């Protein structure tokens, strides 16, 4: 049975594995990518069953990322569920999860926040994109425990698509997706909307040319890219207009 314990591979086209488009130009030189970090912690079969090792090996492999993620030195958690607090859409949520549970599964299976979708479950398609501390991230390759509160340190600010609309008022990006029919079956759409929002947050003046290079961390099967190109360009000025 080779399944989730298979080693994760880089994208054959040489693209930055795991990082959504909005993240692509950054962090490449940091030695170990965020996804490699997750791989070390939760990807290897042994680590999965033995609980999360948050000790010396990890820090030596990726000290920068480990500290950024708030891993506590030397403490072993799991394999049984542990209490943790996630800061989702501005609200602290208390959950009890096994340390191996990804942020995506925590959102979908434990908090009923099902906007982020599980499609590839290994950082290839972007359907699970959420915004963590202002950056678009694949929630299937982030462990919930790594973005939860730590003693003396609040967890990461996690924003899911459920935070975008207020009542019936759609977010500018969602509205532009409707207007430009940038969705068909709609299963990739929430991930794309979040990737687009994060992208516009960081690049307030997108052009068609930039969009096609920067938003290739998300995949659509129905073929809605033409609408998405237009939607991003159209939503950007509306976000500046205070609709963000």
């Amino acid at each position: 049975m080779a399944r989730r314990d298979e080693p994760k591979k880089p994208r054959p086209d040489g693209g930055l594995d795991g990082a959504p488009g909005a993240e692509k130009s950054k962090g490449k030189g940091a030695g170990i990518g965020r996804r490699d970090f997750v791989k070390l912690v939760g990807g290897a079969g042994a680590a999965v069953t033995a609980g999360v090792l948050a000790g010396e090996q990890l820090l030596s492999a990726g000290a920068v990322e480990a500290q950024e993620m708030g891993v506590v030195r030397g403490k072993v958690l799991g394999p049984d569920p542990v209490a943790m607090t996630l800061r989702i859409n501005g609200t602290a949520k208390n959950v009890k999860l096994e340390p191996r549970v990804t942020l995506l599964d925590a959102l979908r299976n434990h908090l009923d926040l099902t906007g982020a979708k599980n499609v590839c479950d290994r950082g290839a398609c972007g359907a699970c994109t959420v915004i963590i501390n202002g950056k678009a991230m694949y929630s299937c390759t982030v462990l919930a425990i790594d973005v939860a509160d730590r003693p003396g340190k609040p967890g990461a600010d996690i924003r899911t698509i459920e935070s975008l609309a207020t009542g019936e008022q759609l977010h500018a990006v969602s509205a532009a997706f409707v207007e430009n029919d940038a969705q068909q079956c709609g299963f990739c759409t929430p991930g794309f909307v979040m990737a687009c929002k994060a992208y516009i947050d960081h690049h307030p003046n997108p052009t068609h040319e930039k969009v096609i290079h920067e938003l290739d961390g998300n995949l659509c099967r129905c073929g809605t890219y033409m609408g998405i190109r237009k939607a991003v360009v159209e939503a950007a000025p509306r976000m500046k207009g205070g609709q963000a």
Partner: protein
Amino acid sequence: MADYHWPPAEKRSLIGKPISRIDGPWKSSGRAKYSYDVNLPGMLHAKMLFSPHAHAKIVSIDTSEAERAPGVKAVHVMTEAGNEARWAGQEIVALAAETEDQARDALRKIVVNYEVLPHLVSDVEPSKAGQNVGKTNETTDGQADQAFAQAEVTHEGEYGASVINHCCLESHGQVSVWDGDHLTVYASTQNIAGVAGEIARALKIEQGNIEVITPVMGGGFGSKFGADSWGVACAQLAKKAGRPVKLMLERDQELMSAGSRPSLYARVRVGGKKDGTLVAWSSESWGTSGPNPGGGTPNLPYVIRIPNRRVRHTPVLTNTGPARAWRAPTHPQLCVITMGALDDLAAKMRMDPVDLLLKNIELTGPLAKTYTEELHKAAELMDWQKKWHPRGDKSADHIKHGLGVSIHTWGGGGHPSQCRCTISPDGSVEVSLATQDLGTGTRTVVGIVAAETLGLPLAGVKVNIGDTKYPPDSGSGGSTTVGGVSASTRRAATNALNQLLEKVASSLGAQADELEAWHGQIRVSKNPAKAISWKQACAKLGATPISAMGERGQRDDLISSGVGGAQMAEVSVDTETGVVQMKKLVAVQDCGLVIDLKTATSQVYGACIMGITYSLFEHKVFDEQTGRNLNADMEFYKLAGIGDIGEIVVHMMTGGEYDKRGVIGLGEPPVISAGAAISNAVANAIGVRVSPIPLTADKVLAALERGGAA
């Protein structure tokens, strides 16, 4: 009285206009609940163990340890010992546990003993496939040998299309919930009625006791018509555990087992006169649909019916996941073979391939005029005359440019459909039918037809679909949904309106047949000043709503079938790396009367992108030694990204004669031609044919080595 006929162009407020899909806000806000998103109190998560062997006899299955594993509540053997696993990925056991991870852990505790048997996973030609071949079939028309003898120019070549996946983003699966004898299934399906029927037969319960609910679904493309073994297993696990169970396929299972498109390869000989007149065709083809033989003899040549032909086909049986209908079944494969061969013949004749198609356009039959118009329109949008060059870009640069063309056809028509339209005294309107929206815009089309018929804005109509409790509709496949639902909805809404007109006629001092619904009013057609608002009219109903049914007729004149379509591709090919880049794809498409121009255009854009994807990237790859599918994931099963598709130009043929044909489906036709058009563009660029699709860099370089003119 209102009649059923579609309103003339000047009387259309909504039909044919670009209208945003009505479930768009629901989807783009993340609020739409797919089967995968259904969370119910006490719900268990199910996972399936699959065969690691491409071909093996199952000697024994021991689930005892798995049954005792933490969190496990029910275990169900799907393929009993004594049976064979016929592909790596075939489902053996399903179990349900409290969490997904517990279910995965428990699968590892199942012990299956296999007797490994010989396998074949490569779709090699029949002479190399040993025993794994089906019966050879031959079809002939006219006198192929005589015609070849008289041909002035002949060409021989090999063409084909590899096995690909559906790769639905929402994997196959469902949530099953029992309430006593009643079963509710939240299924990701193209066919809610079919799922109910299949589960009813498998579990021997009355179909009326099953409700299938699919408000939205994350892609099907032909692979989601049945309940599938996992649909039955999920219901059985839920019964055993006495709790709701969610069973959605994991991505690797989705790609190994939940649908593939058959391959088709052919050695072709085609002959014509020097002026381009086609006279003879012969082909020897083979391909695989997995462990079972596929359909009959492929209907080659495609679209252009060359009068003399001999077509021979042999299926190759492989230990790979069984094929399922893939958007426009067999057409993309037939198209890439036919249009590739004709393109090569044109090159040999030093003819522009558009001229070759036009020269033989009468061989397409009744759609000849449509194709002619579409080819001219596509040429204009591509600037073909200016950009086209004879085969082989002779420029010094290592980046070569080329153009390719193809035409296609599809039937369509309308599937059986019934609709109920309810008008309430408060003026609210509901239309209900047990169809499903695959993302094609079905919900929006139903709303537009009802609103147009009743003279209301789109927001004035509530559309109820995606639930078997509504009047029966059919599975959504083969571009038959829009025909079915638009006919039944038009008839139901017209019948309801006529009842309303009867009720209000006296208050307007007119006969019912002198009245019409227009822009939120009921008015006298010949004296529009005599009118009452829709709300006032409905208020006259008293306490009882109107409820009227409508059904798609046997030979319904609201709809028809049979479309053409032309596509032209522009590519660049890097002769140093072998990488093909899309520059531009032009798609000109007819589909009769367009209901919603916006979602119709989206269908064509989407089909073009899917076409680019299968032309350049998609290929289900197997390892002959282990028999395993090597790219059952989304890193190595490649889909085009937003930057891979170049510019796409869509033109819908509408108005006049096109509208008079009535409504025709659109899902399949525009996905057919891309493989051929792109393949021909690459040949035009580098001077040599690359085959089969997908046109990956390794094949391009190999073809160049064999002798490109570049």
